[in-house]
C-alpha cells in the first residue's frame, strides 16, 4: 500500500501531471476562467474552514475536564453576513455560468452542418460533402461547426473535453451541439452517458486540421454522393415526389422552402417545421397532418434509417436554400 502511494507521487513528480485538459475551442478559455473562479472560491472557503476548525481545536482545547465555557447564543449580524456573502458569490456564478451556457447552446447561423448518429457502441458522422466517418471527426480550425445528433437506440452523450462541450444524444429526437475549433491537433471524443456493455469503447478522435489540410482531407476522403444528393436519391427511391410535387392536385403539401416556416395543422394548431417535425412526419405521418390534406401517407418507420432521414432532411434544406438563392 505504502509502495503504491510512493509510486504514485513519484509518477506525479516525474510526469508533471497536467491538471487542466487541452484547450482547443473558442469557448474553452472562457469556461476555464469561470472554472478558475470557482476553484478560487472553493480553495478559499475550504482553507478558511479547515484552518478555523484546526485553530479553534488547538487554541480552545480543553485544559480541565470540568471547564464549562460561557455560552454564546449566536449573532444575527454574523448569520446575515455569512448568508449574504455566499448568496452574492453564487449569483455571480449563476449569471456568469448562464451567460456562457447561452453561448454554448446557441449555434451561429453560418455554422457548417454535420450530422451525428450514435448507436451501441459507435459514432457515425456524415459531412455535407458526403464523407462518412466512424468514431472520428475531422474539422477545420476557425470555422463554426454545428452537429445535429440523434441515436438509434439508447441515450448517448457526445463529449469533447478539449472543447469543453457535451450534449446528450437521444433516440427519437434531435439535439444540437456546436463549436469552433481553435487549435490543430487530435482530441478525445467520449460517450459520456452510460449506454451499455461497451460504453467505454464508444470513443473516438476529433482531428482538428488547418484549413488547407482540411481541404486536402476532404478531397482525399472517399466522398461518393453528397448528403443532399443522397437525400434526393432517397426522395425519388421512396417515391416521395409523387405526392409532394408542388401542384394544385398533389396529395401532400409541397416541400419547397418549408424549413423554418410555420404551418397550420388539421387540428387547428400551428407548428414550426424543423428537423424534429420532418423526422416525425416521415415516421408518424398522421400524427400532425397539415391542414387541407388527408391522412393518407404511409409510415416509413423501419424503411429509412436514422442516417437516411438525416440525408432527406439535408435534401429538403437544400430545397429551401435553392429557393432563397433564386429570389434576388
Amino acid at each position, binding site marked *: 500500500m505504502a509502495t503504491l502511494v510512493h509510486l504514485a507521487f513519484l509518477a506525479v513528480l516525474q510526469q508533471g501531471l497536467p491538471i487542466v485538459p487541452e484547450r482547443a475551442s473558442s469557448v474553452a478559455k472562457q469556461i476555464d476562467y469561470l472554472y478558475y473562479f470557482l476553484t478560487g472560491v472553493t480553495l478559499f472557503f475550504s482553507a478558511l474552514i479547515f484552518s478555523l476548525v484546526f485553530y479553534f481545536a488547538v487554541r480552545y482545547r480543553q485544559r480541565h475536564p470540568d471547564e464549562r465555557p460561557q455560552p454564546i447564543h449566536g449573532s444575527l449580524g454574523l448569520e446575515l453576513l455569512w448568508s449574504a456573502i455566499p448568496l452574492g458569490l453564487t449569483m455571480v456564478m449563476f449569471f456568469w455560468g448562464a451567460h456562457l451556457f447561452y453561448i454554448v447552446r446557441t449555434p451561429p447561423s453560418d455554422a457548417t452542418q454535420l450530422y451525428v448518429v450514435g448507436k451501441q457502441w459507435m459514432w457515425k458522422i456524415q459531412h455535407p460533402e458526403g464523407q462518412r466517418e466512424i468514431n472520428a471527426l475531422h474539422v477545420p480550425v476557425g470555422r463554426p461547426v454545428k452537429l445535429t445528433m440523434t441515436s438509434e437506440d439508447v441515450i448517448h452523450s457526445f463529449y469533447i473535453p478539449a472543447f469543453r462541450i457535451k450534449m446528450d444524444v437521444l433516440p427519437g429526437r434531435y439535439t444540437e451541439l456546436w463549436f469552433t475549433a481553435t487549435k490543430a491537433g487530435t482530441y478525445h471524443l467520449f460517450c459520456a452517458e452510460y449506454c451499455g456493455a461497451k460504453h467505454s469503447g464508444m470513443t473516438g478522435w476529433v482531428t482538428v486540421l488547418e484549413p488547407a489540410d482540411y481541404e486536402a482531407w476532404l478531397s482525399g476522403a472517399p466522398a461518393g454522393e453528397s448528403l443532399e444528393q443522397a437525400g434526393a436519391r432517397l426522395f425519388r427511391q421512396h417515391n416521395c415526389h409523387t405526392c409532394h410535387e408542388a401542384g394544385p392536385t398533389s396529395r401532400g403539401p409541397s416541400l419547397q422552402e418549408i424549413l423554418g416556416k410555420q404551418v397550420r395543422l388539421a*387540428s387547428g*394548431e400551428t407548428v414550426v417545421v424543423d428537423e424534429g417535425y420532418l423526422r416525425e412526419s416521415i415516421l*408518424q405521418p*398522421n*400524427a400532425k*397532418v397539415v391542414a387541407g390534406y388527408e*391522412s393518407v401517407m404511409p409510415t416509413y418507420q423501419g424503411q429509412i434509417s436514422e442516417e437516411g432521414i438525416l440525408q432527406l432532411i439535408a435534401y429538403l434544406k437544400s430545397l429551401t436554400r435553392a429557393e432563397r438563392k433564386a429570389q434576388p
Partner: protein
Amino acid sequence: MSDQATTLAPQFDDLAQQKESAIFGMWVFLVTEVMFFGGMFAGYTVYRYRFHEAFTAGSDHLNLLLGGVNTAVLILSSFTMAMAVHSAQLNRRRALIVFLVLTMLLGSTFLGIKVVEYSHKFHERLVPGPAFHFDGADPQHTQLFFSFYFAMTGFHALHMVIGVALLAIMTGFAWRGRFSAEYYNPIEVSGLYWHFVDIVWIFLFPLLYLVGHHG
C-alpha cells in the same frame, strides 16, 4: 365493551394522544399517496398536451356510461363510509356493520364494472403491448394513452382492493365489538383512506374519460 387497558398502546399517555396520532398518521400517509399518484399525473399531463389528438382518439374509446356510473358508485360508497364513521361515533354497532358492508359492496361493484371495462378493452385490442391495434391517425401515441389509462386505473383499482380488504377486517372487529364511541380510530382512519381513493377517481374520471369535448 373495551377498556383503556386493551385499547391504549403503551407508548401513548392517553386515548386522546393515541387518536390524534392515528388520524394525523393517516393524513401523513395520504400525503405520500398523493405524490405516488402525482408522478403519474405529471407524466399524463405532459403527454396529454403534447399528443392531444391521439389522446382524444383514445379517450373516445372509453365507455363514458360505465365510467360515469362508476363515479356515482364510488361517491355513494364514500357517503356510506362517512355514515359508518358516524355510526361508530354514536356507538351504533349494528348500523356500523351495515354501512361497512354497504361500502364494501359498492366498492366491489366499482371493481366489477372496472373488470367489465378492462375485458372490453382486451377484446378491442386496446391493451398496450405487441397485440395493441388501433385504427386511428396516430396509433402509437394512442397506445401511450392506454398505457396511462391502465397504469393509473390499475393502481387505483389496487388501492380499492386494499380498501375493501381493510374494511372486511374492520367489519370483523366491529362484529366482535372492538369499537366504541371512545375508541374507533381504525374505522375513522380506514374512512380517510377510502375517501382519498374516491378523490383520486374524481380526478381520474374527467382526465381519462373526458379528454377534448364529446360533442
